[in-house]
């Protein structure tokens, strides 16, 4: 289902000109499954008022996710993932390289099928190359809880940074003197300068 790469949304310097959606998926009351939502909640603040950029959340993959992508030229999906890696590991995935489809719903079609369906139906959807997935390795996706496990909680700032970098907005974040890199304090949700206090 790969289509020829379209570079029409990028200028000569490679800067993306099209409309972008950053979407976190998850269930807010199922422990680590909520991590995608927590990441976009921080991104909403950091990326507020950007032109051509929407930050949103949803609870469904597959068809509904495809429908949310309609009208966008680029999408970054942030979600929990279970591959067996160390909890909190950040995975960068393309549409066709999701390593496991486990934990999926019996009530849905997979995303590649949904995207193909949308294109058949004439919907404006991003090219395959412009759909990128940030997966955060989860530890607990079975217990109802409004907290993530510590390892996954600690991964949230790294996932936020990963998305900011993917968007090419690194230089637009609050600036601090050299030697004081910024990081997100997970306990406050605020970006901090100076030495990290979260063990990373």
């Amino acid at each position, binding site marked *: 289902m790969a289509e020829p790469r379209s570079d029409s949304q990028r200028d000569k310097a490679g800067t993306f000109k099209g409309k972008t959606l950053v979407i976190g998926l998850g269930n807010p009351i199922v422990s680590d499954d909520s991590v995608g939502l927590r990441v976009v909640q921080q991104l909403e603040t950091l990326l507020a008022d950007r032109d051509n950029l929407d930050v949103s959340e949803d609870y469904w993959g597959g068809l509904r996710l495809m429908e949310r992508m309609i009208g966008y030229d680029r999408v970054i999906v942030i*979600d929990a993932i279970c591959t067996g890696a160390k909890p909190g590991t950040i995975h960068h995935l393309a549409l066709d390289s999701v390593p496991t489809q486990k*934990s999926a719903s019996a009530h849905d079609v997979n995303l590649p099928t949904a995207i193909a369906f949308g294109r058949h139906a004439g919907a404006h959807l991003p090219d395959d190359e412009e759909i990128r997935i940030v997966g955060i390795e989860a530890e607990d996706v079975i217990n109802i809880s409004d907290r993530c496990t510590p390892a996954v909680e600690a991964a949230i700032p790294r996932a936020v940074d990963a998305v900011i970098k993917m968007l090419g907005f690194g230089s637009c974040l609050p600036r601090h003197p050299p030697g004081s890199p910024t990081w997100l304090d997970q306990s406050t949700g605020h970006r901090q300068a100076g030495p990290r206090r979260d063990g990373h």
Partner: protein
Amino acid sequence: MASRVTINPITRLEGHGKIDIFLNDEGNVDRAYLQIPELRGFEKFAEGRLAEDMPQITSRICGVCPTAHHMAGAKTLDDLYKVEPTPAGKAIRELVYNAFMFEDHALHFYFLGGPDFVVGPDAPKAARNVLGVIGKVGVEVGKKVIAMRKAVRDLISMAGGKVIHPVLGLPGGVAKALKPDDQAKAKEVADQAVEFAEFTLQVFNDIVLANKEYIDLILSDAYTHRTYYMGLVDEKNKVNFYEGQLRVVDPDGKEFLKFPCQDYLKHVGEHIEPWSYIKFCYLKDVGWKGFEDGPGSGVFAVAPMARLNASDGMPTPKAQAEYERFFETLGGKPVHQTLATHWARLVEILSAAEMMQEIAARPELIDPNIRNIPTETPVEGIGVVEAPRGTLFHHYLTDERGVITKANLIVATQNNAARIAMSVDKAAKGMIRNGHVDDGILNKVEMAFRAYDPCFGCATHSLPGQMPLELCLRDSEGTILRRIKRQID
């Protein structure tokens, strides 16, 4: 001699449907088990929270039918605070609820259950998906489906307050009134929905019903169980998704029970098996006699086919005509063939769309008096709705401040769980003879549970995809002989 069954509880890490089949010494199936992972800890999570938050909290349990939980929660709050919604509050809730049923059923037909029939049960697996449906019915159908889903979702968020999880339900009514413009929009979407439902039934008629092979498949013994059936009915015993009494008919179709949801504990028992997280519901009036058919066994079914069986008809004229055709074609009431659920679902799509039309025309829909304020001290509340996949009960106990001390939910899949287990077992027995396993077994089993569309505790979805299925064949000692995994495509 059958081996002892010891199946380790599967975690979400390997959270797929898992089937264990135990063979006897002759190599025939002794028993097949379907494992369903389930989210844990909801009752504890609910304790200590405000009852009025339950429609929001419970709507997050299930990513598939948040609106069903939300509405069951709101109705349970009505019962908890002993307050009836105003006519406008009720009309808005019913509009949202029927729109949700319509959307969910349409999704099932075009994307999940339908492809097996529209494309054909013997078509290659790769073709049995929505793209195959488009290939057979035409590209226009894809555009129609996307446009219809968008229109219905916009209507739900207009009345429900939020796209993702509705927030309208409050004890005694709803949070937001509708305006005349909203009513005009609702009428427009309802008309479009009726047209879409009729188109969908036409597709089913032309492609499925016109093909004798498909009718034979629906009527095949493989997915037939003579059980009791349960569903909500109105005062005329017509199907109602939102309210009414629970009616149960026996395997001959005669009324066996009719009761308000507050009596559910008198009639619905939960049987526990060591190999399953899911508790198996049964009728206490009959008793648990194992995974057995017939009037002597308390096993019952819910969901579209059961609702049609448990009622005397549909509440709207066009759906009523389809209801009659359904039973005429399939040999009268009740219908016991599980695969007929796909057709029953379409009868309900039309009913939901016509109900949207009826509700959209009610003058009280735009009445600003949307809520009766509760004045009673809360103690206990029980509520019910018909979710797309069957009867859904909510039950809350609170202290005098309305803080939850105990919460119990019985979801549709639990009501259906015993019958699902029986279908899986029967499909396995039909496909395995003297140790020979037909490779088509996964498709057969998959078709059985697709018809029920069980909720596999998949409120969480993690990364998008289809649900993998794994089948383990074991000898009488429990040793794995063969493992078949469905390929993910």
